């Protein structure tokens, strides 16, 4: 498990493959979309929909790994595989980790 919020090697690879400018746009898109995915995760939990819950966690995992936000990705993966839960604590933890990743990504794309 990575200690850093964003794995620098993965992020650098992404920038090299897609171009730094494009990755900036991609981050902006992620920061727009991710709050909706997190909201969907909570809504799915409230509605008791295992399918929606799994799909939302899957999306967060997939995007987090793309940017090298490995801890966020792993937390989302645990939710994806674990199925629907009633406990809201793991989702709050995911929110907090997302906030850290978002801040780090914003800094990376600004710099």
């Amino acid at each position, binding site marked *: 498990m990575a200690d850093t919020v964003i794995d620098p090697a*993965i992020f650098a690879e992404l920038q090299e*493959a897609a*171009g730094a400018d494009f990755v900036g746009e991609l981050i902006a*898109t992620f920061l727009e979309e991710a709050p909706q995915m997190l909201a969907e995760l909570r809504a799915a939990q409230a509605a008791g929909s295992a399918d929606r819950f799994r799909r939302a966690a*899957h999306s967060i995992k*997939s*995007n987090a*790994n*793309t940017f090298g936000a490995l801890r966020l990705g792993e937390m989302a993966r645990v939710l994806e595989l674990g199925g629907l839960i009633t406990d809201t604590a793991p989702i709050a933890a995911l929110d907090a980790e997302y906030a850290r990743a978002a801040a780090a990504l914003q800094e990376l794309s600004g710099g």
Partner: protein
Amino acid sequence: MADSGARLLVADDNKVNRLLLGRSLEVLGHRVAMAENGRVALEMLRRERFDLLLLDMEMPELDGFQVLEQMVADAQLRDLPVIVTSSLEGVSNVARCIELGADDYLSKPVNPVLLKARINSSLEKKRLRDQQKELVKRFATSEVAQDMQESGFALGGKRVTGTVMFSDIRGFTTLVESQTPEETIELLNTYYTLMFDAISGRGGVVNQMVGDGLMAIFGAPKELDDNCGSAVQAALDMIELIDLFNVQRVAEGRPPVHIGIGIATGDMVAGYTGTQTRATYTCIGDAVNVAARMEAHTKQAGRPILLDGATREAIGERFVLDALGEVVFKGKATAVPVFALQMPGRDKL
């Protein structure tokens, strides 16, 4: 690469994934369209031509598995290569994609080097498949090509009741001697175009062309409701087209051409004969021999279209026929009744 002009469709419900994959593909020189779920992807695939689909599995409305299932069931989409790009958990899910016809699987985040290699390989496979299909179409009829695609190629045949037609140009040798080889080729090409139109227009399949002669089958590989009626109607269309062609030829100062057509119906074995490496679709049976003899007999009979008894029985009163009596054909032990189709105002060959 860019010059391949490949058109790719990316189906992914996640915007970040869609943009990133689209970008990676554009960098590789491809043209990319996007669909945000499986239903939209299928609609686009049915509306536009694509060379490759990159398919995510977890999608709302229709997921990737359902898209693969629908593609397998659709003859138009069955051969389109699909690369699954997903972060699916579990080998069984990946195996299920491959079983459903996906060519390849790339896990997300997609490695650009792998992406390039897999896409090129899939496109190359598709190119070869398309080329093969093109070749099959050129050297076999579309019905035979369809049959081969659906049931695969195997030597041997199946029993069918069909109607066979033979046709050729009367006095072709004399005609060839009176003109240049280039003129003969041009004549043959026009002749075959007209005959193919008439025959396929009535559901028949031309399966052999030799010199100025052709053999056509009505009822195999595609079943027809009315083999005999279709064959007779096609014969009338052929004569009519040749008459029109002759008006043009005579106006150009060339001699008219005349054709003779023999038709016979019966049980036969239809299928591929030859070897594993070189085969042709054909029919074997007594009716094939009878039709060939009928066609040869049009010359002696002086009538352009001759039929056997089985065909006559099947067409009933729909066409006016003259019974020409029984004829013992070469290689046949017993005499066969011969009927000539009446064509008002055009009974002479």
